[in-house]
C-alpha cells in the first residue's frame, strides 16, 4: 500500500503558509498573458478562482452547466461564513478557528490546510465588503455576528438568511468585471464530460454545449475542478437538481485519487419529506438553532395524539416535552455540531417519538425565543408590565427580522405558520466532506489538475462545522489557489498554446461521443430517475446516518446490480444534438452509480465512527459517553484515497497518515 505525500511545507504550523508564499516560483505579468487556465464550476470556489486568476493576468475559460455563473448552488447557502475577526471581543483567534475546525472535523482533516484556512479567513470578509457584499450590521454601523454549532464564540458573518447568495453575487460581480475585459471567457450551459491528459499532465477538457449538443475541445495549461459535492448520490438532498459529481468522477477515472467518500454531512434541520414524488429536500439554516429549541414529546401517548391530530404541539406543557439536545449535551445544548444533532434526532425517531405521520420529524420551537426577545424589547421601549400578547408581538418582530425569509420558505412548503406552531424538521443529506484528494497545493494526483471547494476533501475532516463551507470555497479561490497554481505554471511559460488537434483530444472526444450515442440509442424500458431513486434508497437505508458491515456489503452488491440494470434498461428520449435534459441526467446518474459503490466500500473499510460516518460497531458502550461515536485513532487516523482500477469494488486504497503536532487528539465531547 503506497503512502501519499501531502507536500506540506516544513516548519512551525503558524509559519508554514507565510514561508511557503515567500519561497514559491512566480510567473511574471507578461508571461501570464500566454498561459490559459480552465475552471470548471462557478460557485464560490470556482467563481472566486476564475475572477482572481483573470485579475492576475491569466486567460481563464470558465464553465457552468447553468445559464449563468450566478446560479451555482453556493447561492443557496443560508446561514453565514466564519472568520476569525474577533469583532465581538469574545476571545476568538485564528488558532481557535483552526482548533474548532479540526475538532469539529473529528480529527480527520489535514492540520496544515485547516490552519491556512483559518489564517486567510479574515481576509475574506475584508475582500467581500470591498466588493459591496451587504453583510448585516448593527446600529453603530459595524458588522454583526451570530453563533453556529460546535463553537463557543460568535464568528459568523451573515446577510439575512441569504449569505451564500450575497457572497456568490460578489464573486460573480468580480467575474463579470473580468468577462467584460475579455480575461474570462464564460461558457454557460456547458458541461464538462472528460479531462484530457497530455504526457501525464491535465491539458484540457471535453465539454458538451447543452443548447446545441455540440461536443467541444478546450485546452489549457492547467485545469481546476470546482464542481461541488456529490450529495445527490442519495437522490434526495438539499443540493440543486443539477448538482452532480461527473467532473470529479471523470478526473478520478483519469488518475485523480478520490478521498474519504464516506464522509457525508446529514444536516439536522431540513423540512421532512412528504411523499414519493418528492424531488429535493429543503434546508432550514442551522442559524435557527441559535433561537430554536429542539424537542419531541416525553410520553408516547402524546406522540400518538399528535400524529392522529388529536393534540397540537402547542398543547403540551414544558414538563411534557423532551428537549433532548439540552438534556444530553448541557454544555452546547441546541448548538451541538451537525453530526451529533442529526444522530440524536434519528435516535429519538427510531425509538418511536417522531412527530409526523412518517415518524421522521422532530420539533424546532421558537416560542421561548419570541418571549425572551419580546420581554427585552418591552424593556427597551419602556413598556411597563406588558401583556403576553404584546410580548409575543414584539418578540415575533425580532425573530422575523432575523429569520423572516426562512420562516416564509417553511410556510410556503408546509403550509403552517412557524411563528405560531413549532417547525417540523428531520436530517437530510447536505454536504460531502470527502472528494478528490489534493495535496497542500490543492493539486490532485494528476499534474496540473487542481480541485477546490466542496469538490476536494481536505479541510473539514469527517464533519463540517456550520458556516465553514463558504469560508473554504472562497479561501481556496481567492487566496490559496492563485498562489499555488502560479508555482506550477511557472514551468509553463515557454510551452505555448496547447493544441487540440492531437490524439489525446481525439481519444477523449471519441469516448464521450460513444457514451452519448449509447444513451440516445439504448431505448430501454425505464427512465433515468427510476434508477436514481433506486440508488438513493439503497444509499439512505444502508449508507446513511448509521452504517454496519452487513448493510454496507449488501449496499455494494445492490448498487452494482442497479448499475448493470441501468446500462441495459435506461431510456433516454430525444437526440444528442439538441437541448436534452434527460441525456444530461443519464450521464450524471451513470457516474453516481459508480461513486455510490466506492462510497460504501470506503465506509466498510473505515471500521470506526468519526464525524458524519457512524459505524454501529464502533460506539461507546458505557460511562458518561455511552452511545456516542467511538473514534479509533490508532488504526484510522489516515485519509483513505482511492485509486480507480475499473470496477469501483477494485479501487486500491492509498493512505495519507494524518499527523497532529499542534493539537491533542481527544474524544469530541459536547456534554
Amino acid at each position, binding site marked *: 500500500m503506497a503512502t501519499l505525500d501531502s507536500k506540506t511545507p516544513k516548519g512551525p504550523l503558524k509559519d508554514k503558509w507565510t514561508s511557503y508564499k515567500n519561497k514559491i516560483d512566480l510567473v511574471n505579468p507578461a508571461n501570464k498573458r500566454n498561459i490559459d487556465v480552465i475552471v470548471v464550476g462557478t460557485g464560490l470556489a470556482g467563481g472566486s478562482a476564475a475572477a*482572481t486568476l483573470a*485579475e492576475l493576468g491569466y486567460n481563464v475559460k470558465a464553465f457552468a452547466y*447553468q*445559464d*449563468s455563473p*450566478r*446560479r451555482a448552488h453556493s*447561492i*443557496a447557502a443560508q446561514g453565514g461564513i466564519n472568520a476569525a*475577526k474577533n469583532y465581538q471581543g469574545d476571545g476568538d483567534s485564528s488558532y481557535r478557528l483552526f482548533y474548532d475546525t479540526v475538532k469539529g472535523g473529528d480529527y480527520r482533516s489535514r492540520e496544515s490546510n485547516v490552519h491556512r484556512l483559518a489564517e486567510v479567513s479574515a*481576509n475574506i470578509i*475584508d*475582500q*467581500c*465588503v*470591498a*466588493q*459591496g457584499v*451587504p*453583510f*448585516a*450590521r*448593527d446600529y*453603530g*454601523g*459595524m*458588522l454583526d455576528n451570530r453563533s453556529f454549532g460546535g463553537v463557543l464564540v460568535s464568528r459568523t458573518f451573515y*446577510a*439575512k438568511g*441569504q449569505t451564500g*447568495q*450575497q457572497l456568490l*453575487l460578489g464573486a460573480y*460581480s*468580480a467575474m*463579470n468585471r473580468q*468577462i*467584460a475585459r475579455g480575461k474570462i471567457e*464564460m461558457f454557460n450551459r456547458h458541461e464538462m464530460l472528460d479531462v484530457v491528459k497530455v504526457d501525464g499532465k491535465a491539458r484540457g477538457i471535453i465539454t458538451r454545449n447543452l443548447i446545441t449538443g455540440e461536443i467541444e475541445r478546450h485546452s489549457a495549461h492547467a485545469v481546476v475542478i470546482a464542481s461541488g459535492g456529490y450529495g445527490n448520490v442519495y437522490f434526495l438532498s438539499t443540493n*440543486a*437538481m443539477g448538482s452532480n459529481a461527473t467532473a470529479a468522477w471523470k478526473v478520478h477515472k483519469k488518475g485523480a485519487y478520490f478521498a474519504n467518500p464516506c464522509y457525508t454531512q446529514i444536516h439536522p434541520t431540513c423540512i421532512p419529506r*412528504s*411523499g414519493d*414524488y418528492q*424531488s*429535493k429536500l*429543503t*434546508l432550514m439554516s442551522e442559524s435557527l438553532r441559535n433561537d430554536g429549541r429542539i424537542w419531541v414529546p416525553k410520553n408516547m401517548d402524546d406522540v400518538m395524539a399528535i400524529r392522529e391530530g388529536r393534540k397540537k404541539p402547542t398543547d403540551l406543557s414544558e414538563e411534557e416535552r423532551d428537549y433532548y439536545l439540552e438534556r444530553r449535551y448541557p454544555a452546547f445544548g441546541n448548538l451541538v455540531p451537525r453530526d451529533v444533532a442529526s444522530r440524536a434526532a434519528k435516535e429519538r425517531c427510531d425509538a418511536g417519538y417522531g412527530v409526523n405521520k412518517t415518524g421522521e420529524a422532530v420539533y424546532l420551537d421558537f416560542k421561548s425565543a419570541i418571549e425572551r426577545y419580546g420581554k427585552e424589547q418591552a424593556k427597551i421601549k419602556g413598556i411597563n408590565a406588558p401583556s403576553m400578547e404584546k410580548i409575543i408581538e414584539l418578540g415575533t418582530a425580532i425573530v422575523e427580522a432575523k429569520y423572516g425569509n426562512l420562516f416564509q*420558505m417553511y410556510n*410556503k*412548503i408546509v*403550509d403552517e405558520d412557524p411563528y405560531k406552531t413549532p417547525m417540523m424538521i428531520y436530517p437530510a443529506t447536505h454536504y460531502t466532506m470527502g472528494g478528490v484528494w489534493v495535496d497542500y497545493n490543492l493539486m490532485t494526483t494528476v499534474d496540473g489538475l487542481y480541485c477546490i471547494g466542496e469538490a476536494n476533501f481536505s479541510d473539514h475532516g469527517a464533519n463540517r462545522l456550520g458556516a465553514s463551507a463558504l469560508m473554504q470555497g472562497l479561501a481556496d479561490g481567492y*487566496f490559496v489557489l492563485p498562489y499555488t497554481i502560479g508555482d506550477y505554471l511557472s514551468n509553463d511559460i515557454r510551452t505555448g498554446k496547447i493544441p487540440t488537434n492531437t490524439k489525446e483530444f481525439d481519444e477523449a472526444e471519441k469516448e464521450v461521443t460513444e457514451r452519448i450515442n449509447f444513451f440516445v440509442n439504448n431505448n430501454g424500458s425505464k427512465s433515468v*430517475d427510476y434508477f436514481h431513486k433506486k440508488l438513493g434508497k439503497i444509499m439512505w437505508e444502508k449508507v446513511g446516518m448509521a452504517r454496519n458491515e452487513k448493510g454496507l456489503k449488501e449496499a455494494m452488491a445492490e448498487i452494482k446490480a442497479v448499475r448493470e440494470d441501468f446500462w441495459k434498461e435506461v431510456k433516454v*428520449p*430525444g437526440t444528442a444534438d*439538441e*437541448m436534452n*435534459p*434527460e441525456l444530461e441526467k443519464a450521464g450524471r446518474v451513470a457516474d453516481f452509480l459508480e461513486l455510490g459503490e466506492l462510497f460504501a466500500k470506503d465506509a466498510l473499510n473505515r471500521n470506526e465512527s468519526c464525524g458524519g460516518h457512524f459505524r454501529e460497531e464502533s460506539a461507546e458502550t458505557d460511562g458518561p459517553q455511552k452511545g456516542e461515536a467511538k473514534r479509533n485513532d490508532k488504526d484510522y487516523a489516515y485519509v483513505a484515497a482511492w485509486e480507480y482500477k475499473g470496477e469501483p469494488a477494485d479501487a486500491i486504497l492509498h493512505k495519507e497518515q494524518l499527523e497532529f503536532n499542534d493539537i491533542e487528539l481527544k474524544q469530541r465531547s459536547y456534554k
Partner: protein
Amino acid sequence: MNLTLKIWRQKGPTDKGQMVDYKVTEISEHMSFLEMMDVLNEQLINAGEEPVAFDHDCREGICGMCSMYINGEAHGPDRGVTTCQLHMRMFKDGDTITIEPFRATAFPVIKDLVVDRTSFERIQQSGGFISVNTSGNTQDANAIPIPKKDADDAMDAATCIGCGACVATCKNSSAMLFVGAKVSQYALLPQGRVEATERVQNMVAQMDLEGFGNCTNTGACEIECPKGISLENIARMNSEFMKASLKG
C-alpha cells in the same frame, strides 16, 4: 387532483411552436409545481414522447433558474415565490393550467419553456461590480461604518435572483427593476459610490441595447417579483441616472 395542462411546445429557437394539451392525474396538493411537471415528464417518457424542457435547479427559490408563465402570471398565482416554490394547493381538481415561457424580445425561446436570459448577463458585465482586485490586504471590513438602514436597503436590493419575472410580466418588457436593484445596491454603499456615475450610464445603455422596453410605472414587476424588490429601486436608478447625466 386531476388537471389539464396547456403547455407551449417549441422544438428549437427557429421553430414556430404551439400550445399542446396534456392530462395529469392523482396530483397531490403537497407537490410543488415542478414536481407536478416531473410527473408529467415521467408519463411522457414512459409513453415514448419527448418530455417538456424547462429550466430549474435549486428548487428552493434562490437560484433564479426556473421561470414559466402560469395562467398569465410570472411564477404563477402565489405571491413572493418562484415557480419551484409554488405548491399545487394553489389549484383545484379539474383546473386547466396554461403554461408558457417568459416572453420578451430580449429573452428568445431556446426550447419549450426554456428561454435565453444572457441579455441580463451582458447588463451585469457592463457595470454591475466594484473594481477591486483580490489582494489579501484590502482595508479592514469595519474600517468604514455603514448605517444599518443603508446596509439593510442595499441588502433588500441585492436579494434580486435575476429570474426575469419583472421583464416577463411588464407590458413593455422593461428590465428597469432588475437593473435598478443592482444600481441601488452599490449606490447605497460607500464602496460603490466611486464608480456610481459610469455604472448607471453603462448599465442603462446596455439595457437599451438589448431591446428591453421602457418603464411606464404600472408596478406589475414589483407585484410579480418573487423577492419583493421594491419600485423604489427604479426611482433610485432614475435619480442616479439624472445625477450622472448632469455630471456629463
